[in-house]
């Protein structure tokens, strides 16, 4: 009955590979987000989707492509992984607007 879930929890991969992270929410929310937390713990938004429509794209490299098959899911696909992509990626969801965002447990990505 986890509200916002992410898979996998850990991801270790080589430079140049392509990988995906999945996110699902069972809160009935309309809006979902991806955030990146760097090694200094700084959290920054990457994307947001509202009812499967892209709303925010914060100058993220186009190697990152979010996909929302339905409003309960927001997946993140990363092409040609680079060392600098190593981070913790958090998915979140909310009812939209400035309402509370609920976060998933994070996916720890390490690119070697």
């Amino acid at each position, binding site marked *: 009955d986890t509200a916002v879930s992410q898979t996998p929890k850990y991801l270790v991969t080589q430079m140049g590979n392509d990988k995906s992270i999945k996110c699902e929410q069972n809160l009935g929310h309309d*809006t979902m987000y991806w955030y990146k937390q760097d090694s200094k*713990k700084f*959290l920054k938004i990457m994307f947001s989707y509202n009812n499967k429509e892209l709303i925010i794209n914060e100058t993220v490299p186009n190697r990152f492509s979010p996909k929302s098959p339905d409003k309960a899911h927001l997946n993140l696909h990363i092409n040609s992984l680079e060392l600098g992509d190593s981070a913790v990626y958090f998915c979140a969801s909310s009812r939209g607007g*400035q309402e509370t965002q609920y*976060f998933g447990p994070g996916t720890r990505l390490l690119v070697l």
Partner: protein
Amino acid sequence: AQSVTQPDIHITVSEGASLELRCNYSYGATPYLFWYVQSPGQGLQLLLKYFSGDTLVQGIKGFEAEFKRSQSSFNLRKPSVHWSDAAEYFCAVATSNFGNEKLTFGTGTRLTIIP
């Protein structure tokens, strides 16, 4: 542009002592303010939020925060900390710009508890 400043990178307090974590924000409109806590290796958990009304808000785990518009602050307090409070604390402001709502986070304050 909106911003959030948490001036204290790391704070150490003794178990049972009181705690105050500082947060200042910059945002032109009425802010929606949040405090989240991140335990080691975990996700972010909402502690409390301020949208409007009473400027002193109560949260989970005995935390409270006070919104002071004149000082653009939203400081987090707890009267007596427990060892389990050791974690990273993030203040955030939710901003809205023609539907582009997002959370802008501060850089976090790491809290260490000593016996």
